[in-house]
């Protein structure tokens, strides 16, 4: 069971030159089935599991400008789940965003990406859901979108305009690893869903590396999904392949970036279970995604901003009440952050507590992520244990959080980046 399983793709896809490029591989030293592995790569659990004791029973509220929509029960329960789906029904959902009843799904379901998955991967995924997932009786919840906006037929037109149906087509000019990476990034791991900016109709501006804007960064749900193109300043151009693999595996690259929010969840539920060869394939592909800069030339990237500053020297030896008035940012930092991140912002030597300089979220101009991490904290698992940062949303006011964020960027990060109490308040309401 522990043998590393390598699956040849179905012969029906023989038109593809590089069969091995699309072969799913199970995580090392892990006995999960091929279908379970594919479910990990597609991170189905991110949206379809709300209660850990009832995997895939759905019910996650996803806000849209028109009202909340809810993820559905995809357990094999016959009355409320997908127990009556045939392989054809299941394939149609992933490829076309149309359910068994003929209704169009909202494109919150990333079928514009899943459409690229191979027949054999979809079959394996289908077998996994039918045979390995426990049926849970949990009726689906109607969306809160009011009529007439709740009518779903216009989605047909949306699909006609924006859905690029069809299995991933390998590029014979590229390596197996590149093709495997492209297949995963464009398909199952659906990176583009968050990292590609969307147009007026909420469509992604590009679904592969040939389209300008693909993976160039976007704001979504109160978080910023960073530019992960190959641009040296704005994207991941300065990272090594190993950095990318380590980030996906652990959510942390010391002196560069740490995953929190939705990316933290993607690492926790999906990427850390993926094989090294798949993660390397993703890195290989990402390096080839054409660089998109952010409109101005940065002297240094968001990963290299800032340096250690001994903040304790500013406030030590003073009456703390007076120091709170004269240097409120420094006092908020010392009282709330410095115990773990160190008084000079250097974090811990092992990187468990990240440094605040040379830190993506402090060095960027997009302050949503830093602000939300302060408000909500971080709590996720990696393959070595749990990572935890307490939430400060209850103990600090909007004004204090803004003061702290501005202190952090001006001291350890990008001094041009500033926020306001109002902006903090707006992010707080997205909790």
């Amino acid at each position, binding site marked *: 069971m522990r043998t590393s399983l390598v699956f040849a793709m179905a012969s029906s896809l023989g038109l593809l030159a590089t069969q091995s490029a699309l072969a799913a591989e199970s995580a090392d030293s892990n006995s999960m089935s091929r279908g379970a592995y594919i479910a990990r790569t597609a991170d189905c659990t991110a949206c379809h599991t709300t209660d850990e004791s009832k995997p895939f029973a759905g019910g996650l509220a996803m806000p849209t400008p028109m009202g909340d929509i809810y993820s559905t029960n995809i357990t094999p329960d016959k009355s409320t789940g997908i127990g009556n789906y045939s392989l054809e029904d299941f394939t149609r959902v992933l490829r076309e965003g149309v359910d068994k009843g003929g209704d169009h799904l909202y494109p919150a379901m990333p079928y514009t990406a899943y459409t690229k998955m191979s027949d054999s991967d979809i079959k394996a995924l289908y077998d996994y859901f039918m045979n390995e997932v426990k049926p849970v009786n949990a009726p689906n919840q109607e969306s809160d979108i009011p009529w007439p906006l709740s009518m779903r037929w216009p989605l047909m037109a949306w699909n006609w305009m924006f859905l690029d149906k069809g299995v991933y087509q390998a590029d014979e000019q590229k390596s197996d690893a590149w093709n495997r990476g492209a297949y995963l990034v464009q398909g199952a791991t659906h990176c583009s869903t968050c990292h590609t900016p969307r147009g007026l109709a909420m469509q992604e501006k590009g679904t592969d590396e040939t389209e300008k804007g693909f993976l160039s960064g976007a704001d979504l749900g109160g978080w910023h999904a960073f530019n992960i193109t190959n641009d040296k300043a704005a994207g991941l151009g300065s990272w090594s392949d190993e950095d990318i693999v380590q980030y996906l595996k652990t959510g942390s690259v010391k002196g560069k970036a740490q995953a929190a929010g939705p990316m933290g969840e993607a690492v926790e539920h999906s990427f850390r279970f993926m094989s090294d060869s798949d993660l390397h394939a993703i890195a290989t592909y990402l390096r080839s995604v054409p660089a998109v800069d952010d409109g101005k030339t940065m002297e240094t990237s968001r990963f290299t901003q800032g340096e250690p500053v001994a903040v304790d020297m500013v*406030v030590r030896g003073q009456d*703390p009440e007076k*120091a709170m008035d004269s240097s409120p940012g420094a006092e*908020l930092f010392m*009282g709330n952050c410095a*115990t773990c991140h160190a008084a000079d912002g250097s974090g*811990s030597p092992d990187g468990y*507590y990240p440094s605040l300089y040379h830190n993506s979220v402090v060095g960027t101009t997009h302050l949503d992520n830093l602000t939300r991490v302060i408000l909500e904290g971080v709590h996720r698992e990696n393959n070595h244990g749990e990572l935890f940062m*307490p939430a400060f949303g209850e103990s600090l006011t909007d004004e204090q959080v803004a003061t702290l964020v501005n202190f952090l960027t001006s001291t350890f990060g990008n001094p041009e980046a500033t926020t306001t109490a109002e902006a903090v308040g707006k992010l707080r309401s997205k909790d």
Partner: protein
Amino acid sequence: MATQHKADVVIVGSGVAGGLVAHQMAMAGKSVLILEAGPRYPRGDIVERFRNQTDKMDFMKPYPSTPYAPHPEPSSGDYLIQKGEHPYDAQYIRAVGGTTWHWAASSWRFLPNDFKLKALYGVGRDWPIGYDELEPYYQRAEEELGVWGPSDEELGSPRSKPYPMSPLPLSYNEHTVKTRLNENGFYVVTEPVARNSRPYDERPTCCGNNNCMPICPIGAMYNGIFHVEKAERAGAKVIDKAVVYRIEAGEDRRIKAVHYKTPDGTSVRVEGKYFVIAANGIETPKLMLMSDVGNSSGMVGRNLMDHPGTGVSFFASENLWPGRGPQEMTSIVGWRDGDFRSEYAGKKLHHSNLSRTDQMTSRILKQDDRLILGNALDADIRDKAARYVQVDSFHELLPHPENFIRPSATEKDALGLPKPEFHYAIDDYVKRSAVHTREAYGRIAQLMGGTEVEYHDNFANNQHICGTVLMGDNPSNSVVDGDCRTHDHDNMFIASSGTMPTVGTVNCTLTIAALSLRIADTLKREV
């Protein structure tokens, strides 16, 4: 006076006891109002006050006393009025969250025999409830507070389930001393503490700042504030700076209301169905005596107890480097129980892991026979701080009605409310035990190659305020029954170490927490 607030359950005091009851009742859907005399202190401010204070051993300094709700200040205060043979130098915090803001988080269960001291050894009192009745609540309390404890050492208190967390590894200092003592006939165990060894209850893992007292800077150690905040999230309301000064009983002997003063002296009346007084073992009896409620037994304020402590310090013959990790992780527990308890007090000894760098520095600088500077000074500080050993103890004082606290007839605070006045003495039961403890100290110093051995025979106060509203079956000589309900008033409960009729040999917070959860279960059946 018009009633200005109403709630199903009105709780006076927002420490670990009040916070736990409030959280449970709010979760049960009841309207809950907590009245707290002191202010709210943000953790970050406390941390920064501590870091800027010069005397790091003054554990009250980061919590400034207020004129409207003064509390003890060891370096400058005049709040506690001492009239007895021995000062009762209590330190407690009047602030939202209470005194567990600064504690070492020791979370011991009592031993089954601690509940029947009179029956077994003919001294002190028996509890109206036994260990078996409290065991499930001890377990729940450990889960609520987040307690780590050893799974491979016998602590003498039978458990229905394992500790929620396993301990962090012992520091080199504690591991070395524990091993040496256990090889030589002592019984040293890893102490159960309410501190995280992994992320627990949305709080981080201890990273060893070594200033549990006076403030855990990251909230890895449990503080009462966490249950106050959880209660608030569940719908409870907290009014801070609300100094309750009167409990109002009706003609049917049910409590009708409590009255509080705001810092400017305005009086506010609060009605409730049930009242829980959780204002610690000193402010609770003071308030009851000021209000003349619950005292038909005449026992309110009496039987004041604590754990009179002695200690020893010396320099070991080897480097131990105290200061890595939490301030205390081990205890010597071989004398918590035994037939000797009919003659002298049971006790627990504990080995300190405080960093002593600052104390050794001032000790060296105070030496007037020589002046050392530069590298020689650094080397001397390093050497002494690395070899310093301190062991302290808790002795079980017995309940004596003549040890008491009462509202001072003459001394008032800024709101005109009486200060607490103490009449307290150390009994021979403790003094006899301390002689034996001193012998144990000498043996420990010898085993560690100790030099410059100093004994601290001062019977220091350890802030375990018990007995002042004690529980018992007999309403003529106790204040509350086994459910912590006052004998005199059906709808008034007391959640406090004050209800404990004996003080045992260990820190009382976990027992306070267990009794509080038990009170909440009773209230859920009635409210």
